[in-house]
């Protein structure tokens, strides 16, 4: 099999509040012999908030990030659902609006760059499922997670809007019955837990301005997984991880019930199954203790 190589857009949290996500991404990439060229020049994607303030500026900054992936001639891989959404949405808008693309390129020319539209943008979840292959991952599992009930938490921005999502990866995901993460859990030898909240919102994006709404969404999601006997949750989104891992107190108060589950990054789950050590995967960085290792 030809060695896979991607331009890695880390996003901001992997460098700050979720260091374990960066560690586990690189650990899994090493196990799967995937080469990652980190886009160290990249800026924040705006996380759907800069876009509320200055749409054109966010387009220019995201186009610059993609332009760097294009300079490497590589597909850009993201490890955050919201980074994926904002980058893919920028690509979609520029690829479908020549006038807008020209305006953005006028700005990028000031720093000697051009957005061409030649690099695809995919989330690491779909890179390993579509490009590496679930069957191959299954073959490489050395520590199957067979004793665990694992609740997938997809995160909004990887599955909606589905039209945009369908452009960025090969496996068409059903936003009302997504399967990618479930399939990955099964490939890792775990038992996937089905629950109503698996494709719902965690509330992260209104944590500051609407804390009660955010807390109810977080609490309901953890409670839904708990009620289906999940031992842990797993998510491809570091923002969902942060909300579900660190905000259990306010979530419990909001729904009037004590809730708390370990929340693994998708990469940590795969890494465990592939035989990576807990230290390599940064499992000590979780606020809600990962106490089953």
């Amino acid at each position, binding site marked *: 099999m030809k060695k896979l190589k991607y331009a890695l857009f880390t996003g901001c949290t992997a460098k700050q509040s979720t260091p374990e996500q960066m560690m586990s991404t690189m650990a899994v990439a090493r196990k799967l012999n995937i080469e990652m060229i980190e886009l*160290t020049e990249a*800026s*924040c994607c705006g996380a759907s908030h800069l876009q509320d303030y200055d749409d054109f500026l966010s387009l220019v900054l995201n186009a610059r990030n993609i332009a760097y992936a294009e300079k490497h001639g590589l597909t850009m891989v993201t490890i955050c659902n919201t980074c994926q959404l904002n980058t893919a949405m920028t690509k979609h808008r520029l690829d479908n609006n020549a006038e807008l693309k020209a305006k953005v390129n006028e700005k*990028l020319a000031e720093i000697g760059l051009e957005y061409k539209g030649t690099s695809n943008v995919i989330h690491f979840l779909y890179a390993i499922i579509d490009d590496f292959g679930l069957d191959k991952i299954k073959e490489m599992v050395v520590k199957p997670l067979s004793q665990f009930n694992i609740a997938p938490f997809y995160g909004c921005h990887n599955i909606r809007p589905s039209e945009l999502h369908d452009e960025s990866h090969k496996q068409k995901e059903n936003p009302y019955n997504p399967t990618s993460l479930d399939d990955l859990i099964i490939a890792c030898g775990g038992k996937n837990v089905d629950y109503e909240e698996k494709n719902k*919102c965690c509330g992260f994006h209104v944590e500051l*301005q609407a804390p009660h709404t955010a807390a109810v969404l977080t609490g309901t999601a953890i409670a839904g997984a708990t009620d289906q006997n999940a031992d842990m949750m797993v998510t491809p989104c570091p923002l969902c991880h942060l909300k579900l891992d660190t905000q259990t107190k306010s979530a419990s108060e909001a729904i009037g019930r004590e809730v708390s589950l370990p929340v693994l990054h998708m990469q940590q789950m795969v890494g465990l199954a592939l035989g990576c050590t807990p230290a390599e995967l940064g499992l000590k960085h979780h*606020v809600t203790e990962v106490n089953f290792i």
Partner: protein
Amino acid sequence: MSTNSITTQKVNFKVFRFNADEDYLPYYENYTMDITSEEVVLDVLNRIKWDHDGSFSYRRSCRHGICGACAIKVNGRSTLACKESMTTMIEYFGNEITLEPLSTKRAVKDMIIDKADFWDKHASVTPYLVADIDECPSCENLVSPHDAEELNEADLCIQCGACHYACPAVEINSDFFGPAAFVAAYRFESDVRDSDAERLINVNEERQGVWDCVKCYECAEVCPKDINPIDKITKLHQMAFKRGVAKNNVATRHAVGFLHSIKKHGMLDEGGLVLYSEGVHIVKHIPVALAMFKKGKIVLPWNMPKSDKLDEIQKLIKSSSTVKF
């Protein structure tokens, strides 16, 4: 002539039943039917009423995706019954299908709900054109094609309520206007003839306004007219800044804080953003921050990473910024 033959498959339906005049609690009735590949969800509702139980109640009218009356939930997904094919629903959910009203807690009889909250919120955004009209104009009040495009199809909303009752923020926060009301507000805010000064201020108020949108994209996913309500919500955010009506509060500072962080570091300074957004109220986040710090999840200011080629980012921010706050 179509070469596709009509196929049939057996589907089990679990149907929400409730009569507010007679029932203390709702219950579910089961029906099994052979569904053809040509049927839409409304055909199933009709068959339940005509073939199984004449008391089964639901709203329907135009049968052509225009009136918005027949919206219900299929396996939790808001759906315009007359437009959505059963084949798609079976592809989504398999052969076990649950039919429920848009909001089970607002059910009056079976699929019929009390939409008062929806209409009240719709009315409260001034969903009509406000303009001083010359009763005897010398010429037509022309709108250029470019200006008409700014409506961005918001005028196609049929008030079905699919997005409103799919919105998790509406479910939790009863003050929140919801995506359909925001689409209506955007429809008139983006109309060059409109002169209402209060609407945009109203939809930017805390708790009820656009800043409480959770950005989950459910509204975009379920809208049967492809209006993309969250796109209109984003445009209302942008309008608030551009027209200078955005208040200085935690929500607006949260958006603007990204610009400051990116200008300084290229990346987002997560701690700095919370401080900038919350001001002195940051103290309420201290317990969580301490728990994160213990686990190595907080980067101290002097260790804040920066993007390479930060000068490029700063140059672009200087030349490409279109808004001031």
